[in-house]
């Protein structure tokens, strides 16, 4: 963690970053994602020896296909629940912060400026940008997954129910569906298991992992260090206190650590298999 942690005898203040619903959604997303990746990859790399072994571990292609579909339903459920939540926020609660502004996931001019500034900081040409609640790379993660779920989910449904879709769609669309399903999946798997893992967890400041997605809480020094603009904004608006919360639940942290370790292990293993297959 960052070195600007306060001395140990001073009790650290914590702020809520993700609510329970968001954390649960993330857990379902990651588990179904890994399930989909490990059951789908054998087909994408069917000419590889490891693909046979992996398909065998699932008990054959039929049960691998079954698990793939179960995970797909779970992921679609998480997606629908999330979109429903956003729509509820916007239409029922008239909370337009989700659409624009510092608490929105929608890309904005400041993201371009911050990305530019961040990269200047990488090479020592400027200070680290003062990020707010969501950074540009987090937004990229979010929209990559969002678009990925639409593309992979949509094409996946076509491949699951081709006869039904053929009532309105010509069969050659399935050729395209099959192509984008596999390629987009490769993009998603490659991105999540390398870039997302790095940005969110294994880069030196976060190593070995950032538990905020599992505990929902971020310590004050970390908030100040990583998202000074958010801290200042909340302080200015006098709403900082609204977000102050108890320290992380050790059980949530332990759960996150265990699940994260499994996910990172499986993810890096998957990347190794893909790289091996592509180099062959």
């Amino acid at each position, binding site marked *: 963690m*960052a*070195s*600007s942690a306060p001395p140990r005898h001073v009790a650290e203040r914590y702020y809520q970053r993700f609510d329970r619903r968001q954390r649960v959604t993330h857990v379902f997303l990651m588990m179904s994602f890994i399930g989909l990746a490990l059951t789908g990859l*054998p*087909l*994408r790399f*069917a*000419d590889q020896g490891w*693909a*046979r072994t992996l*398909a065998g571990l699932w008990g*054959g*292609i*039929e049960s691998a296909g079954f698990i793939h579909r179960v995970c797909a339903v779970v992921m679609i459920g998480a997606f629908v629940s999330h979109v429903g939540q956003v729509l509820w926020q916007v239409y029922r609660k008239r909370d337009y912060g989700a659409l624009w502004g510092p608490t929105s996931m929608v890309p904005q001019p400041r993201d371009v400026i911050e990305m530019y500034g961040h*990269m200047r*900081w*990488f*090479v*020592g040409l*400027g*200070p*680290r*940008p*003062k990020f707010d609640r969501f950074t540009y*790379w987090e937004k990229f993660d979010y929209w*990559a997954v969002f678009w990925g779920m639409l593309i992979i989910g949509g094409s996946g449904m076509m*491949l699951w129910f*081709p*006869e*039904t879709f*053929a*009532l*309105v*769609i*010509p*069969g*050659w669309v*399935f*050729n*395209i569906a*099959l*192509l*984008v399903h596999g*390629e*987009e999946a*490769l*993009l998603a798997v*490659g*991105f999540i298991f*390398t*870039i997302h893992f*790095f*940005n969110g967890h294994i*880069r*030196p*400041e976060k190593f070995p992992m950032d538990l905020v997605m599992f505990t929902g809480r971020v310590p004050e020094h970390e908030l*100040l*260090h990583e998202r*000074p603009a958010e801290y200042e904004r909340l302080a200015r608006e006098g709403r900082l206190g609204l977000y102050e919360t108890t320290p992380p639940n050790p059980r949530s942290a332990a759960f996150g650590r265990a699940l994260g370790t499994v996910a990172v292990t499986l993810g890096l293993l998957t990347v190794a298999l893909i790289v091996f297959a592509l180099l062959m």
Partner: protein
Amino acid sequence: MMTSLARMPVLAGLLLWFSVAGAAQTPPAPSAPSNDDCLMCHGDKDSAVRADKTSVHVDAERYGASLHGQMGLTCVACHTDLATAAEWPHAEKLARPDCSTCHPEPAAHYASSVHGQSRQAGRKVAATCASCHGSHDILPSKDPDSRTYHLNLPRTCGQCHGNDATVAAAHLPGGNVVRSFEDSIHGRALLKGGLLVAPSCSSCHGAHDVRAKSDPASQVARTNVPEVCGRCHEGVKLQFARGKHGEQLQQDNPRGPVCIDCHSAHHIQRSDMSVWQVDVVRECGTCHQESIASYRDTFHGQVTALGFARVATCASCHGAHDVRPQADPASPVNDANIVATCRKCHEGANANFAKYNPHANRHHRDPMPLLYYTGQFMDLLLLGVFSFFGIHTGLWFTKELRLRRQRRRAPPAKADKEQRDDSGAA
């Protein structure tokens, strides 16, 4: 006497059996030894040994039960040179019994066979009459105990063609073909099922006139294979003749496949086993390379590549023995029949469904430009994302590593200041 008998080669035994007719036509001189005379020395298992302890024993009882023994043939009927021998014990080198005296037709076949020709060329490993039929214990081929009984042939031929050492030393064609045969549907039907209708070695290769497959007169020469298989598989032979592959055979196109190219010769598997169904796809692909490459790019080909035959293989859509070009109205993949073909698995398939291209090639612009450009777009997208974030991540990683190293080296107060600078919070 024992000493010279003991030095005599086992040829003595062979000679006995090789000159029956000659003996029958010209009765031996009165001085010819009787079987009892011979057995005085050769009948005793313990004493009928050469100096090097190898046996020259003849089992009188087994000879008596053998085909020749039953006929009452004397020893000298085959070992003709002993009929007129004057000195006893007889000379050690005896003439080779000549089976052709009584069996001219099989002997003539043998002489032109690969075994006979090899023997003539001086290859001692090649089979003689006795290698397959035995010598003093020959039984009729219909006798279940005979070496040449239908069910026993694989073991008999396997003395050489099923023996790894012999196969390797003599470079026998096809390797250990008997082992392959034993694991085939023919071998199992014959050896486990005990089916007399199942083929044994001689059913396809012939018996005395076994010829190399490179010999056009051979039953197993490529062009003769459909005829040989068709002796039992008549229906398949007719189907094959109607299809494109059969047509190529009729046109003497050497690249056209015959039965064994897809089914193998000795390791023929049950066609309803998924192992076979998945494997034969590879066989089709040895000639139809572009088709198998595009097939492997689609769901059907990926599943079968993993070893599961639940989805369509080549034959599911194209048919098997009477496979025809797509343009042929009788082809299952002809436009007129394609929906019905899809419906064999996809019950709800309609004309729209059948517009799916199971051999789509994303690397060719035609005939599916949209697929091609989607593929190009996806390639660019992947390349773009991974390039950008690869560099982004690399720079970020080095920056944070450098910061961490600085903090470790510098005193805490200074590190704090540096950190503030780097955070942009200063």
